[in-house]
């Protein structure tokens, strides 16, 4: 038990510290790398809770795919760091107001007893008992039965977003010679080679027609 507590505090402290570094790091590439560190430690926290499926999905989706694309974009962009810093004071009041509202909401929810923070312990445990049913199976059982429509809906929203992004960026350029592999494979000596008998002094065209 003591080891688990130590591990929890190490992971939690590193997660929070990495989160702070994401906004404090001077170089955006380093920000993304700290973000990845935060993801990893959150995955570790999930494992500690016994939610191994969520932990692995977090690493696969966020670290393996999303953060790679972040890194990709951030490395490609030529960002002027001092220009980014310049607006800091200007936006500070707005940011402080948003933060204060969020803090007030949290205080209202927890301190006034609108939500009993002990409810989850009574109603349901976060994870089913590991020896009865595996984590993945339990998640699948609930996602594809009770939340089937919500799950499908979420999938459709993502699909629409993806199609939208493709529609916005895709343009058909004229005058581009594309490789058509099926055509290349279908060619044989009869269609690819043309024999022309050109008489001396006569103008010939090398084109097939």
């Amino acid at each position, binding site marked *: 038990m003591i080891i688990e507590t130590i591990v929890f505090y190490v992971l939690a402290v590193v997660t929070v510290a990495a989160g702070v570094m994401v906004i404090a790091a001077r170089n955006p590439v380093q920000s993304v*790398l700290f973000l990845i560190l935060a993801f990893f430690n959150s995955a570790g926290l999930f494992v500690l809770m016994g939610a191994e499926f969520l932990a*692995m999905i977090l*690493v696969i989706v966020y*670290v393996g*795919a999303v953060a*790679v694309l972040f890194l*990709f974009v951030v490395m490609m962009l030529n960002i002027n760091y001092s220009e980014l810093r310049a607006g800091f004071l200007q936006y500070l009041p707005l940011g402080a107001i948003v933060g204060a509202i969020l803090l007030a909401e949290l205080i209202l929810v927890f301190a006034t007893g609108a939500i009993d923070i002990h409810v989850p312990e009574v109603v349901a445990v976060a994870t089913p008992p590991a020896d009865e049913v595996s984590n*993945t199976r339990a998640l699948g059982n609930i996602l594809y039965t009770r939340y089937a429509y919500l799950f499908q809906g979420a999938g459709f929203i993502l699909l629409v977003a993806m199609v939208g992004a493709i529609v916005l960026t895709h343009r058909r350029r004229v005058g581009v010679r594309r490789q058509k592999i099926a055509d290349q494979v279908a060619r044989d000596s009869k269609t690819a080679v043309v024999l022309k008998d050109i008489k001396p002094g006569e103008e010939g065209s090398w084109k097939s027609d």
Partner: protein
Amino acid sequence: MAESNFWLDYILPLLLIVGYILAIVVPILLVVAVVAYGERKIWAAMQFRKGPNVVGPLGLFQPLADGLKMMIKETIIPTGANRILFLMAPMIMFTLGLIGWAVIPFDTHLVLADINVGILYLFAVSSLGVYGIIIAGWASNSKYGFLGAMRSAAQMVSYEVSIGFVLVTVMLAAGSLNLSAIVEAQKGLWFFIPLAPMFIIYFISALAETNRTPFDLPEAEGELVAGYQVEYSAMTWVLFMLAEYANIVLLSGLSVVLFLGGWLPPFHVEPFTWIPGIVWFIAKTAFMIFLFTWVRATLPRYRYDQLMRLGWKVFLPASLAWVVITAGAMHLFGWMPQ
């Protein structure tokens, strides 16, 4: 808590685990050295050459000689490079090549961590490999390195999608995410027979994931010098090489577990069942590594747009369709494992 209890409860298991890890990692590193040598010998045989034959009998000590040479070379860190990230990248690559072995079952119950989501763990590990390359390319402050890193990021992200769908069909067929259970599910029939198209997609995607020919565009020496490795020398470069071979061995081992029945013998009759499971596992893995080598000796490099076309326009629809077909067939004929 008594002090003796502390030793028994924490220190002893810790030492045991360290022992297990050494028992896996040391043979893996030996295998990596043998693969590096064997690969050159196989290419040589395929190209009517002799290959390494000077150091030791049949050139067997060539990897040792190479290692020694690289060790006494100078590690150069380019000016303008991000020192920490520059040195971290090869370590990330090498570590990722090794940690995947934690969940690979070598025989019945012969596995370090028999976790429920073993297949997802391996998928996660293989999807992290791209970081070593991106960080290496960016931190070296070199245009060739950066171009290689960009290519590799696009390539590995593309082929991961189809690998993911291949893993989904295997999970469907086995009814579990645990690698030992997946092997046990192949007692009747190895999965490469019913899932033959997926096995082919998996193998080709694995070539792309490990950046091997015909997909070695990130290091394409003809155009990018050596891509992301261009600024690396001595031991940092050795780590990249070791990581590449460790990854090949890992993905070969994974394909054996997923499609070739892991430690199971081909037939459950007398002469085959006498041979212990781990021998079967090693033999099958060696065969897969040979396939990797064979491909590299045979095929030329893909063009970049062809690579992208194959990943997104051929493999993605094909693997997606095969997931639907597999699920549909299993539901229709009642083959769902329980």
